[in-house]
């Protein structure tokens, strides 16, 4: 999902600015928005599927919606939903499903305007584990959103480590991202990596710090107010915690 051609100018720009730029028909901003949408299309697809759409319909809906999203002048009238891209995307998608798709999707189906190549098989696979799920599609959307966001962060992190030639270190240390410090087997990691225990501690700390920074940056991009990162993290955590 990570893209080496991502427009760096928008890498850390808040989504509202991107949307405003898209409204102004800025090509770079369009790429940035499509990248942002590319990260989070999967929760939308599954949301549509849970709304009892067929695979084909769901795919059409998502593709059509994203194409619509990238069109200039079509975003201005939409509710910004208190500055959260997550809420904005879901609200817009709902809006799209109810009003627009019947009219526009038929024309667009099979047409050239398919902004993303969607891996529908992979998107379907995640649906198998919650057969008897009584939670609302909205809640599940949030949960999948969180998963997509974390995946994006980890993929970015891995790419960054790979580009620095530290792929092995990342693969060995990434499990430390979930563990409490006391549970991390520093000494065995040190042996595996062939560095001192102190160096492992420092490396783990740096990994965590980078992970945190990436996570916060990624979350901040989906908010219009960067101060709300903490709240957004809490609500994502809550969305993940509700599943048991």
């Amino acid at each position: 999902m990570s893209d080496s051609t991502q427009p760096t100018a928008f890498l850390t720009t808040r989504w509202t600015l991107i949307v405003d730029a898209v409204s102004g028909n800025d090509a770079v901003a369009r790429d940035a928005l499509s990248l942002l949408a590319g990260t989070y299309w999967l929760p939308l697809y599954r949301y549509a599927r849970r709304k009892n759409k067929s695979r084909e319909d769901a795919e059409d809906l998502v593709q059509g919606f994203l194409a619509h999203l990238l069109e200039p002048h079509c975003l201005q009238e939409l509710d910004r939903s208190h500055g959260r891209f997550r809420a904005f995307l879901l609200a817009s998608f709902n809006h799209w499903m109810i009003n627009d798709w019947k009219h526009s999707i038929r024309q667009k189906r099979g047409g050239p305007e398919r902004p993303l190549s969607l891996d529908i098989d992979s998107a379907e696979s995640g649906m198998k584990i919650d057969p008897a799920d009584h939670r609302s599609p909205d809640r599940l959307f949030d949960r999948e959103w969180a998963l997509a966001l974390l995946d994006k962060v980890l993929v970015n992190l891995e790419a960054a480590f790979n580009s620095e030639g530290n792929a092995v270190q990342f693969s060995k240390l990434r499990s430390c991202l979930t563990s409490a410090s006391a549970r991390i087997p520093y000494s065995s990691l040190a042996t595996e990596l062939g560095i001192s225990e102190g160096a492992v501690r420092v490396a783990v700390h740096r990994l965590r710090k980078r992970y945190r920074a990436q996570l916060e940056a990624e979350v901040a991009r989906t908010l219009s107010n960067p101060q709300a990162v903490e709240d957004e993290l809490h609500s994502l955590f809550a969305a993940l915690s509700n599943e048991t």
Partner: protein
Amino acid sequence: MTESNPNQICPDCGATMPDDSPQDLCPKCLLRQALESRTLVDDGSPSAPSTQPPSPHEIADKFPGFEITECLGRGGMGVVYKARQKSLGRWVTIKILAPERVGDARFSERFAEEAQILARLAHPNIVTVFDYGETDGLYYIVMEFVDGVNLRDLLRDGKLDPTQALGIVPPICEALQFAHDKGIVHRDIKPENLLLDRDGRIKIADFGIASLVGVNGDPAGTPPYMAPEQGTRSQATDHRADIYALGVVLYEALTGERPGESFQLPSQKVHVDVSIDDIVIRALNRDPERRYHTADEFRKVIEKATAAQTRGDVDADASPAPVKPNAPLVPNPAPLDPIVFRIAGFLMIAIGIIQVLAVSVNVGNFIYFLSGAENGFFAEFLSMTEPAFIWFSAKWLISASLAVITIVGGTHLLKGKSRKWALAGAIACCLSTWGLVIGVVALVVLLSNTSEVFDPIGNTPHNQRRISRLAIAATGFHVLLLLCLAAGIFVVQSRYPITAGKAPSVFLIAFPVLFSAATGSILGWRAAIQIRKSEGKLYGKRLAVVTGMVVPSLLVIPLVAIGAGSLKELFASSPQFDDATALIVGTTTVSSIGAIAFLGLRTCFRYLAGKPLQCYSKRILSVAGILVGLWIVSGTLLWV
């Protein structure tokens, strides 16, 4: 999304992981860790400063020799920048201290003093100071750049493994001992100041900066890590405050929490050997006397406990650790202090006081009889031969010294402080007139018990801040000097007019006066040097300076006498001088004497007060030199 086994269980929270978990990591734990560490960041960091620190770009032109790359952070002590020293191509850290102190002369002086002390701290576990200075009113210190993280960063991720936590203490102790031996106390040991480099080596940063920034009575140190005595009497803190702070750091590293007023023992919270509990309790004792006396002592017990811990871990692998009862926190048991010690000490002090009283009565008698002229004792005293007089003076000087040593030794015995002093006191007690029995008892008590009642460093320089004993002794000798002068005046007066048969012995008056003056000044001189070297552990500097200045001041008298004498001689030998010559000779003589006296006294004073001696401008020195030269030349010419 990585495909994985749908039944995978998260090893951290035990929940079933969704099969679309990112990178096979439990998403819940991923977020929880991020949230927890965020909370800790907010918790541990100082409140955000109201003003933004200047950006690297803004201060770049103030440091032309450096290429300032980034601002590493801002703490209570100032702002830290990462920079590259262009000349040597090395990375350094530049710390800009207290921007609000710009133009504060006292701070400036103190800053230079402290930085010079810090520059002497060359130790592998202490961040090296390369340079310091002031540029455009910004006080800065250039330090070694440590590429790594600080312990606070590591603790943000939660507590450390016990072996790791214990492992950080010995190198810190070594570095602290090194600094304490030089009389330097850190005063702000905390996780933020303990840096770990990429090889896992630990280094202490910000030595002495706490006391520097806190010079105007601002709080020096960081409250949770401050020893109780730091909060109350700042002058009474010593190296044991660092030991307390390190105790807090150790507790936090072991348990992930800071110890509160009453804290749970580490072994109740994490799997550590019980011996660690005792170590932590002792290091965290509210009474500095009951903490580890030195960082080295702390290090040794930690190393011993680490060995035990490693053994314990092996045992624990074989069999489950026994469940420990929830014992309440007991204060550290007091070191052995048998009542005999106290009684013996008390008796020694009593004997000493009696001795002092006896000596005072003798001296009082002496002075009384000196003043009440026609008296048998006085007559007898005056008729003393010189050896008899010396014996008489020596006898009461010796008894006075014995009494003082007895009292000091008794105090040490009573408080269980210094074994050396207690022994000296007991011996002095044996030698005094009425103290033999008590002295012997005290000696027996001392020699039969070698327990750790005695502070092994009780009389080393990095004990608690105290008054310089040498300065007190110097003052004592000058009081004696005054008494001798008074006595001398009485003696001379009582025989006035002096006739050949009744002339008092010059030795009788001059010897005690000169002896007391010289001894007092030498002691004062020594005391001043000792106080300066003690780096703030001793006080009484003014007393030392005044006592040390007595002899140099007295030396002005012969100098004036020489000047006056030479003038008198000159005018007597050549009475034909006209007024102009007389004026020139008189002025040069008086001003030369004045200049020599002034420069000499000022130099002595500055030396004693520990101020730099290069204080004279070339102009003053050349004027003084010309005056003296003129005096010598004119004097010689006229003489010839």
